[in-house]
């Protein structure tokens, strides 16, 4: 493992960058279970958390891992778990409880091909699961989708802040490429956070000098759960308003706007640049938060552009959100590679040229 203390930039994998960013953000408990392609993250944490005298637990299951994170969060600590698609399915019970109990936590999904055991190749086929709640009940989770190793570090730190601010689980969503490729990262991204963390008067620390705190998601009195759900929805509305993040690349005069996130957005960027060299007016909207989805940015783009193309490493999931944002005013096309397929810039360029 590399020395991250003295160098200006460090070369590391996305998985390691997420781990180091979590350490920098003050994550006090990490629990995980082996699964490819996120194993480097668990291994990294097994060293770094112990070095920092924090808690690392290799759990007996994904269920146990998410519930250990639940427990750490109950106790007021920043906590994280990570996995890949099949493991994230198992964590959904815990994520639903975290949402229901309004507990902050960070969950990393380094996606692989599915359904079922699928394969270990990069994929984006957990989009619905990540953006629609994923588990049972009416809830949403902020889902951050980095497209570079450095951004994976930045967004992991942000994930902890947002989890605390809005008291709920926050996802960092990457794929096998992002998790395992190496890129230089500014060491400043890993500076230990000095700013004060938000106070957590709701945490369980022992009822000393105060009334007992209770953490629960059970509301049995008639109407009480409906009220609580309305409160959750108000929170989600505030998140939509304040935390939607995206990047506009060459969209101003674009006749074709491609929408892509994560690894796919980087491949698409190369395609857009190549198209521009041929004087073909293509642009890219890159959602950084896939929930909340940047629907306003897409709606705005629909004013000037002629046609949209959604590109995903799936059979078409995000494309539905693009369609919802465009509301039928412009045609929306889709190009995808499911089951671990990774599109090349040339493939995307060819698809784009059909529409230009």
């Amino acid at each position: 493992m590399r020395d991250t203390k003295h160098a200006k930039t460090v070369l590391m994998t996305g998985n390691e960058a997420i781990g180091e960013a979590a350490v920098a953000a003050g994550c006090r408990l990490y629990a995980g279970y082996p699964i490819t392609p996120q194993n480097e993250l668990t291994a990294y944490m097994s060293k770094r958390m112990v070095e920092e005298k924090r808690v690392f637990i290799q759990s007996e299951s994904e269920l146990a891992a998410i519930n250990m994170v639940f427990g750490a969060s109950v106790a007021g600590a920043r906590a994280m778990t990570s996995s890949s698609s099949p493991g994230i399915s198992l964590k959904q019970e815990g994520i639903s409880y975290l949402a229901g109990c309004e507990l902050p936590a960070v969950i990393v999904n380094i996606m692989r091909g599915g359904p079922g055991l699928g394969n270990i190749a990069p994929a984006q086929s957990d989009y619905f699961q990540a953006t629609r709640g994923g588990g049972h009940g009416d809830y949403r989770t902020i889902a951050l989708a980095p497209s570079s190793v450095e951004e994976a570090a930045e967004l992991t730190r942000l994930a902890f802040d947002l989890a605390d601010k809005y008291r709920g689980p926050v996802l960092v969503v990457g794929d096998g490429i992002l998790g395992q490729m190496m890129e230089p990262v500014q060491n400043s991204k890993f500076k230990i956070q000095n700013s004060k963390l938000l106070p957590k008067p709701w945490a369980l620390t022992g009822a000393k000098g105060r009334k007992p705190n209770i953490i629960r998601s059970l509301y049995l009195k008639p109407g009480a759960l409906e009220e609580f759900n309305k409160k959750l929805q108000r929170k989600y509305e505030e998140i939509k308003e304040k935390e939607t993040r995206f990047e506009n690349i060459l969209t101003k005069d674009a006749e074709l706007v491609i929408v892509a996130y994560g690894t796919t957005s980087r491949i698409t960027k190369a395609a857009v640049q190549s198209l521009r060299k041929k004087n073909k007016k293509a642009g890219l909207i890159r959602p950084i938060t896939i929930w909340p989805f940047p629907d306003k940015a897409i709606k705005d783009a629909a004013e000037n552009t002629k046609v949209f193309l959604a590109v995903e490493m799936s059979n078409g999931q995000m494309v539905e959100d693009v369609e919802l944002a465009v509301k039928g005013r412009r045609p929306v096309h889709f190009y995808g590679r499911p089951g671990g397929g990774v599109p090349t810039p040339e493939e995307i360029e060819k698809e784009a040229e059909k529409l230009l």
Partner: protein
Amino acid sequence: MRKIFAKPKSLRDVPTHYCPGCGHGIVHRLICEVIDEFNIREKTIGIAPVGCAVIAYDYWDFDVTEAAHGRPPAVATGIKRILPSNIVFTYQGDGDLAAIGTAEIIHTANRGENITVIFVNNGNYGMTGGQMAPTTLLKQKTKTTPFGRDKVRDGYPLKISEMLAVLDGVVYLERVSVHKPANVRVAKKAIKRAFQTQIEKKGFSMVEVVAMCPVGWGTSCEGSVKWIEDNIIKYYPLGILKEKSEILNPKSETNSKSEIRNKS
């Protein structure tokens, strides 16, 4: 005038929702008495299960969290690792601990987490209307064994405490009952020893409490006492299952262990 008997401070002065003759009220009270006697109310964190005791936090006057069905030991692990000076206990039924949460209880015990588990065994799923539990006795009738538990179809009553007792991480494990006053006194002693084990940072402690469920068993209060006496404790004998004198735990040891590995 000297008061010789009162409600424990850790127990709220409210009526409970438990059925007549149910054992949960007794177990709640015993835990609260022990917490008062150790004067640890202000640093105790309880974990309420899914099951009849799901709203135990309405009765206990200290910090309590819920946990998903079967997951209290994992939640307790997270809490205790963050707050090692606090006293953390789970309160779990037989469905929670011995069916859906089997993996969590085994591995939490095996890690030797310095927590206390109060395992209430009443041989059925009371909250959902009396279905077969892992601890339901052979031939016992429940909502889902209308002809009696059949060993071929349903398997045998699970001896989870015996299974856990063989694990190196378990320091103290006793099975008690609350069906008679004499047994209640023994049960209190066991719960006290379990908490004492945790206070002394010795490691994982658990008390299995055989408890009455007259409504779930389709019998009277008296009948439920007789059922425990004549049937349950014959299959699940009372007594200490594990008592370890040496101390292994302190979780801080994990740091030094990992350093040794890195040097090699």
